[in-house]
């Protein structure tokens, strides 16, 4: 059994279901955080699918574009931005949205610039792409400026996604309400940290853990979402409403 194929394939299947579920919620409710989450989750799934493609089919520059641009650069920031949109419904979030879109367009330009200079002569389907991309992409000093952008997007994504989930879990815990949302948010934070740790290990040269980290992240975040978003019982709804009223009074 080829772990380099199976692990990312499973991740992409989980993320596909997850993305469709969140997108369906956006269609039903038109809340912007669902849209950003579904875009970010779709990017995550596309990155995982690209890894499975490299292991099962072989090299493709277009698939490398998908893997690096959506999987390594953008996805965490877009998912995290969804959390920001949920937690803060203020006018300044529109400015942050503009900055995220602008930053993503700049990253797209930089990525397209580096594409003709990829060198896949040493590519092998036996190794995870996370252990080979440094040889495939030129160094930063040689024009691969896109590589410098990943820490910015990922810091933003980690801060908003993990920070937002932990903050939400803490708020519910402190008030001793809605245990499903406490546990759900903790699972989401743990999943996001799992991929954050795996990415950091990749940065340190241990790219072999990335695929496992992705699968753990996909499963934990999906489980967390299902738990946190589980339909409230009538009793829960009435309690939440009553507490909002008492908090406002």
């Amino acid at each position, binding site marked *: 059994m080829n772990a380099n194929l199976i692990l990312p394939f499973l991740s992409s299947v989980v993320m596909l279901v997850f993305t469709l579920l969140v997108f369906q919620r956006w269609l039903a409710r038109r809340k912007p955080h669902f849209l950003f989450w579904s875009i970010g989750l779709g990017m995550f799934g596309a990155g995982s699918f690209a890894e499975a493609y490299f292991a099962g089919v072989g090299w493709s520059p277009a698939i490398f574009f998908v893997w690096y641009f959506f999987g390594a650069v953008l996805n965490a920031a877009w998912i995290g931005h969804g959390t920001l949109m949920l937690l803060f419904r203020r006018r300044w979030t529109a400015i942050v949205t503009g900055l995220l879109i602008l930053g993503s367009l700049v990253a797209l330009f930089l990525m397209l610039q580096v594409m003709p200079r990829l060198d896949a002569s040493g590519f092998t389907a036996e190794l995870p792409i996370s252990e080979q991309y440094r040889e495939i992409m030129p160094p930063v000093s040689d024009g691969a400026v896109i590589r410098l952008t990943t820490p910015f997007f990922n810091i933003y994504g980690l801060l908003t996604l993990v920070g937002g989930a932990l903050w939400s879990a803490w708020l519910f815990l402190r008030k*001793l309400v809605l245990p499903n949302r406490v546990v759900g948010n903790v699972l989401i934070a743990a999943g996001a940290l799992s991929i954050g740790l795996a990415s950091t290990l990749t940065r340190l040269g241990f790219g072999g853990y990335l695929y496992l980290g992705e699968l753990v992240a996909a499963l934990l975040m999906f489980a967390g979402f299902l738990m946190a978003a589980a339909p409230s019982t009538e009793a829960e709804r009435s309690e939440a409403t009553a507490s909002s009223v008492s908090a406002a009074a």
Partner: protein
Amino acid sequence: MRGDPDRSEATGSGPEAGRAPAGPSRSPYSWLRSKKASGSRISSGSPLYTRVLPILILAMGVLTVGLILFAAGVILGIVPFR
């Protein structure tokens, strides 16, 4: 990322959370409603919610700060870019 909650739900709670409103409009059956609503409350004696999860949240917060500092180190050139 969090689940789906509406903001009204997310802001919920306070010392009066889950109790039926007091006053003349209080129904004689409000004690029953109050009992039903307690299903969405966390027991203050639960070790999972009073000990395990707070420690886990704190640990994950520290880990998050560590990862952010690492990424900042990459940006600042302190951590060698590979």
